[in-house]
């Protein structure tokens, strides 16, 4: 869930093209992000809306020198999943997108599209959960909108949040800042949200002890930003997962990234569920994690800061930036391979 059109790398838009046909219809891609059709998106959005902000391809646009603006729409099935709900997701998602630019999130808008017949009780639960998340993050919801549409015109409820933040002093965070030699960290276990949501889907019939990690990261980021310019890149690995974020950093900074398989924090249960379904946990969405690129000399300090925070206690140094232009992983077998980008929906496979 990202800020800028150019960066649809992690969006869920993909378009099908059959042998030589032009793209005709927008296709679904649940687990989104990945390889398909950056080119096309550019064709639809980037050209039409072209300006210096869009071209920056950041999680949030930077306005007036120090104010960030970001937007995201949230749709999730089921609405209530272990560890959270669409309301918490909507607040944390936008709080985190502001944070990822090195900004302190302050104000949110919240726009609801509700299906006729939606239970008021559920709406109240969602709103309460938003209020709680906003309180925890210290942000205010200052404007909103409510639309009710005909039965069948929307799948229960969609929420859009947009957010405004103010840059921390000395912040210079950008997807383009990674340099060879920098160190890559992650704030905790990978794939919890994606797998919690997936295994909560009735049709899959899995029971897992997995909870979504959905959380506001601004507290953690605020602490981290005391390291100032040493913090080079911040990115929340939402749709498309860690793999996609690493790819984006690699592409936008013009660098390579090497990660170490042995250092990747993953819960046993998430790994197991991935094995059942033939899914790569690096492709799973996270909603309370951040990938951090930091100057090498500050890596240990950054790790320490993260570990001292509730939402960073499982943080790890997971890799380093190099000049290979590739995202690679050093396996536990001492070999190395390229990290796959997700394509299309994440679906359970048998093959």
């Amino acid at each position, binding site marked *: 869930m990202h800020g800028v059109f150019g960066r649809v790398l992690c969006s869920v838009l993909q378009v099908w093209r059959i042998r030589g046909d032009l793209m005709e219809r927008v296709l679904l891609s649940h687990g989104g992000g990945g390889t398909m059709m950056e080119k096309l998106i550019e064709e639809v959005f980037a050209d039409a809306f072209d300006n210096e902000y869009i071209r920056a391809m950041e999680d949030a646009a930077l306005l007036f020198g120090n104010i960030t603006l970001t937007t995201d729409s949230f749709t999730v099935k089921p609405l209530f999943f272990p560890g959270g709900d669409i309301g918490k997701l909507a607040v944390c998602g936008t709080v985190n997108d502001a944070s990822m630019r090195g900004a302190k999130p302050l104000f949110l808008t919240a726009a609801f599209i509700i299906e006729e017949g939606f239970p008021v009780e559920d709406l109240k639960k969602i709103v309460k959960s938003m209020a709680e998340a906003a309180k925890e993050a210290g942000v205010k919801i200052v404007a909103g909108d409510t639309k009710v549409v005909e039965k069948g015109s929307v799948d229960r409820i969609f929420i859009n949040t947009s957010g405004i933040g103010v840059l921390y002093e000395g912040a210079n965070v950008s997807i383009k800042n990674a340099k060879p030699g920098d160190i890559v960290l992650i704030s905790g276990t990978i794939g919890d949200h994606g797998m919690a949501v997936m295994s909560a889907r009735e049709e899959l019939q899995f029971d*897992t002890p997995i909870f979504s990690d959905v959380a506001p990261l601004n507290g953690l980021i605020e602490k981290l930003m005391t390291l100032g310019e040493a913090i080079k890149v911040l990115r929340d690995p939402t749709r498309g997962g860690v793999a996609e974020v690493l790819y984006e950093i690699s592409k936008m900074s013009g660098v390579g990234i090497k990660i170490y398989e042995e250092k990747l924090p993953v819960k046993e249960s998430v790994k*197991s569920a991935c094995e059942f379904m033939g899914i790569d946990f690096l492709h799973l969405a996270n909603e309370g994690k951040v990938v951090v690129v930091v100057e090498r000399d500050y890596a240990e300090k950054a790790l320490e800061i993260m570990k001292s925070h509730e939402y960073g206690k499982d943080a790890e140094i997971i890799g380093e930036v190099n000049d290979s232009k590739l995202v690679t992983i050093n396996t536990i077998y001492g070999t190395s391979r390229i990290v796959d980008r997700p394509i299309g929906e994440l679906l359970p496979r048998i093959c």
Partner: protein
Amino acid sequence: MCIAVPSKVLKIEGKIAETELGGVIRRVSIEMVPDVKVGDYVMVHAGVAISIVDKEEAEAQRGLWNELMEVLNDAAEGNS
């Protein structure tokens, strides 16, 4: 092709077993492994247990590399 995952049998109810891997629970058909017992590991493919994991063979495999190396060393020695 054919993703299959070793999963521990927790409970058996008729033709269905509750299996577990790393905390992940899935109810699977055991129609093809009629001899399965609670505590066994089964290979689960597409919601069906397709075989029981042979514990002895699994144990045996662990030693195989050492055996192999010995054989190879012997062979190398014998050759040289």
